[in-house]
């Protein structure tokens, strides 16, 4: 799997009159980024400052008339198209992309990554309990949702154990996040095996942009306390650095029988950036975290046959510990050629009642971009990833072998061809080899057409592969049998060595319009054709002792249809309205020989529609009022209905003096508590999201 790179171009809002929405120049930029980030690397971020998030525009026509109103930080982030280089064209963004800026994160009152994703069209975010989330792109939601690639500064953070993400372990200092790019649809050509339905790319600021000190304290009823301290400085030799510490403590959610899902996590980290010349930039960064997350889990114990299995409910803390180190070197060889080398090491440790994982990963990634003839922009790369795990077998959860090393080799090539100034064709493919399913190829073709200076039409056809997770081949997971079943007979989900990759062919079409930065619309429609989706076909093992086996297999196909819309209206200077809407229809079909009774139910686990509308209003220079309404349609998880809900979020922010900001934030204000999702595979007790009110003080000095 290839990792993405951080890019430097910033695409953000300066909170004044010029707010471009993620859909147009920003998106253009962002996708250029995502393409170009592969080329350029992080050093370029040297330009943005923590205090402001800055919306840059690529094209002249998107800049405000009077640039002297913009901060220098903003000015430094405007990318100009140099004469020597191939011009960036508006039609670059042949993908569905949504960018969350640093300013958005602040104004939405975000305390962690999942909260940031709630308003993004096409992304489902649902809480299972206070520390567990089900997050997916374009359907198939579950705690173990496996078709989404999540990257933090170019480091892949999904676990190969089940191809999903431990969201509670992915912490960042929200104030130091430059932006979050959410790309729906397959990104397999560039990113590889897990980027089936989407890529979430979390990009932190360059150390050059977080100079100075910052202290932030957040406290309330549900967010019991979050403390952040960060120091940024510059060494004599010109290296910018920052160090930070963050501690978060969250209260338990609601359950009539007691939730026991409070959790806390602490993290330390650093980042250093060195931009010595305009040719080289080097980034070195790392994080270390420890956490404890409460849960109440039902497990089936006892041997099969008489005496009967007992179902025990255990209250327990999952302990987590992990860290990473990442090095990235970007070098520009000529004005039309550059390469980047990235190496990272990542450790994940997790010890719970059921799940146990101790994993080390080393990833080496090289990319080279060059211009070929006038109109070809070629980027190719090589990636090698080694991951080794140790697990601790228990009666409920066992991996065979208990320790395994897995290698992943991949290479990709992509050519972006400028057929006309406003017509771009992108062809590419990725070829990779993994130890689970062997060789996989993931080609894609994209076409973008600039209809006018303000309109782009794009379309794509691509193939993406979700390679098997370690668990799907090696696990023995003792499930809690449904209440109707004989508790005396164990039900076991069985990994299967023959379990193969899930395959997607995706057809996408999109249109975006940006009218003078006053209003903009971004629409994407897609048709996804899946094959070899995961099934669990029950079979009875007569024993002795008898048991029900559920081996992982690939006996399902399906289609999903969807529409996603994001829109922005700059009503007047200092007042912006946004709306997002998504619609999804999933149709899954079991193969004739399949006896699976559960997998098709993911048809109903994503809402058929969800919507959000939000307003960002400034009173004068130092008072901000933000309001949002969110609607999420009803779902059904494993046969249990969860009602649709509407929630409201509010924020009042006051910058009392330069660098000092006070805010009060309310989330999920319309209900005392409401359920959002239910667990899967592991019977943790679901809890309900409660009304949350908290205050925040951030002091930068």
């Amino acid at each position, binding site marked *: 799997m290839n990792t993405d790179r951080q890019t430097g171009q910033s695409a953000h809002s300066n909170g004044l009159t010029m707010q471009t929405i993620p859909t147009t120049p920003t998106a253009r930029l962002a996708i250029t980024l995502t393409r170009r980030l592969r080329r350029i690397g992080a050093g370029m971020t040297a330009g943005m400052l923590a205090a402001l998030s800055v919306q840059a525009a690529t*094209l002249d026509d998107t800049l405000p008339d009077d640039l002297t109103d913009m901060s220098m930080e903003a*000015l430094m982030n405007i990318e*100009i198209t140099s004469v020597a280089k191939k011009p960036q064209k508006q039609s670059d963004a042949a993908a569905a992309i949504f960018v969350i800026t640093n300013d958005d994160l602040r104004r939405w009152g975000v305390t962690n990554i999942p909260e940031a994703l709630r308003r993004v069209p096409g992304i489902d975010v649902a809480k299972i309990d206070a520390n567990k989330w089900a997050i997916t792109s374009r359907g198939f939601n579950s705690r173990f949702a496996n078709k989404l690639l999540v990257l933090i500064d170019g480091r892949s953070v999904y676990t190969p154990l089940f191809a999903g993400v431990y969201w509670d372990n992915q912490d960042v200092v929200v104030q130091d996040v430059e932006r979050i790019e959410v790309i729906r649809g397959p990104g397999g050509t560039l990113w590889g095996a897990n980027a089936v339905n989407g890529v979430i790319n979390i990009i932190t600021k360059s150390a050059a942009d977080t100079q100075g000190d910052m202290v932030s304290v957040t406290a309330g009823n549900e967010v019991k306390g979050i403390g952040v301290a960060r120091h940024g400085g510059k060494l004599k030799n010109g290296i910018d650095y920052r160090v930070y510490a963050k501690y978060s403590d969250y209260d338990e959610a609601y359950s009539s029988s007691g939730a026991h899902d409070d959790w806390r996590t602490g993290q330390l980290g650093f980042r250093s950036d060195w931009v010595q010349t305009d040719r080289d930039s080097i980034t070195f960064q790392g994080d270390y975290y420890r956490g404890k997350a409460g849960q109440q889990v039902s497990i089936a114990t006892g041997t099969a046959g008489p005496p009967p299995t007992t179902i025990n409910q255990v209250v327990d803390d999952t302990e987590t510990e992990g860290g990473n180190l990442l090095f990235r070197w970007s070098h520009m060889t000529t004005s039309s050629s550059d390469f980047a080398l990235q190496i990272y090491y990542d450790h994940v440790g997790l010890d719970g009642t059921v799940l146990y994982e101790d994993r080390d990963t080393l990833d080496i990634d090289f990319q080279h971009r060059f211009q070929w003839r006038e109109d070809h922009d070629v980027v190719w790369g090589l990636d090698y990833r080694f991951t080794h795990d140790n697990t601790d077998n228990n009666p409920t959860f066992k991996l065979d072998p208990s320790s395994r090393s897995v290698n992943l080799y991949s290479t990709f090539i992509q050519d972006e061809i400028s057929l006309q100034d406003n017509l771009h064709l992108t062809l590419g493919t990725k070829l990779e080899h993994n130890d689970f399913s062997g060789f996989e190829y993931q080609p894609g073709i994209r076409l973008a057409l600039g209809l006018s200076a303000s309109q782009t039409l794009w379309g794509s056809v691509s193939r993406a592969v979700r390679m098997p997770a370690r668990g799907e081949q090696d696990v023995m997971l003792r499930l809690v049998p449904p209440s109707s079943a004989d508790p005396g007979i164990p039900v076991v989900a069985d990994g299967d060595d023959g379990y193969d990759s899930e395959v997607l062919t995706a057809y996408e079409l999109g249109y975006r319009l940006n009218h003078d930065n006053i209003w903009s619309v971004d629409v994407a429609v897609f048709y996804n054709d899946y*094959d070899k989706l995961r099934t669990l076909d029950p079979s009875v093992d007569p024993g002795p002792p008898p048991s029900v086996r559920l081996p992982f297999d690939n006996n399902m196909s399906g289609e999903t249809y969807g529409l996603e819309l994001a829109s922005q209206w700059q009503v007047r200077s200092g007042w912006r309205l946004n709306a997002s809407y998504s619609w999804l229809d999933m149709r899954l079909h079991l193969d004739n020989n399949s006896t699976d009774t559960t997998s098709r139910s993911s048809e109903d686990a994503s809402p058929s529609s969800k919507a959000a509308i939000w307003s960002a209003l400034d009173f004068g220079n130092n008072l901000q009022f933000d309001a949002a309404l969110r609607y999420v349609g009803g779902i059904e998880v494993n046969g249990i209905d969860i009602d649709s809900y509407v929630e409201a979020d509010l924020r009042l922010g006051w910058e009392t003096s330069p660098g000092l900001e006070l805010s009060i934030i309310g989330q999920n204000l319309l209900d005392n508590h409401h359920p959002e999702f239910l667990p899967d595979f592991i019977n943790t007790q679901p809890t309900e999201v409660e009304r949350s009110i908290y205050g925040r003080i951030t002091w930068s000095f």
Partner: protein
Amino acid sequence: MKLSGHNTFMRKLIAGIQAVRQAMAALLVLLLTVPVSGMADEAQQTEYRIKTAFLYNFSRFVVWPEATLQDRSEFSLCTLGETLFGEQLDTLTGKIVHNKVIVVKHFYRLEDALDCHLVFIGEHDELAETLWTLRKQPVLTVSNATGFAEKGGIIQFKLIKNKIRFLINTDAAKTAGLTISSKLLSLAISVTGTR
């Protein structure tokens, strides 16, 4: 390579490519009618619009000796030699910095520019000589010229990966009697000289 599903995929891909080809043919007509503007000129204009905004900000974040501000009724922002600002720079006329109204002037002879607060030095044959003459004058010198800051210029623009950044020579500023705010220094990609 896994081959199951391969054929269907290839068929669909080929169908997709064919559809795209047809669409492209149809679009060709449209394309001929869409005017293609000079991207290079636009880029250059953008570059100089941004540089104009930077010059304005430099004026705000550099402190001149009291005398040079008090004695003069206006803040002189000048260019020396040929530049690519066009009329951009003139948009700063009338703005206020350090309680003075900005007046934009264009000169070709160094002697005329000695009373300027800020001089952007364009294409100019005698750069070293110019910098030597201005070195003890309270004039903020700015240029695109390569090596400008090393040669004794105070602020040098530098294009880095399509973005405009700048270098500062603090020794040169000190010699000129100018104080550069820490904000400017923190944004510079490199600062030469002692702070």
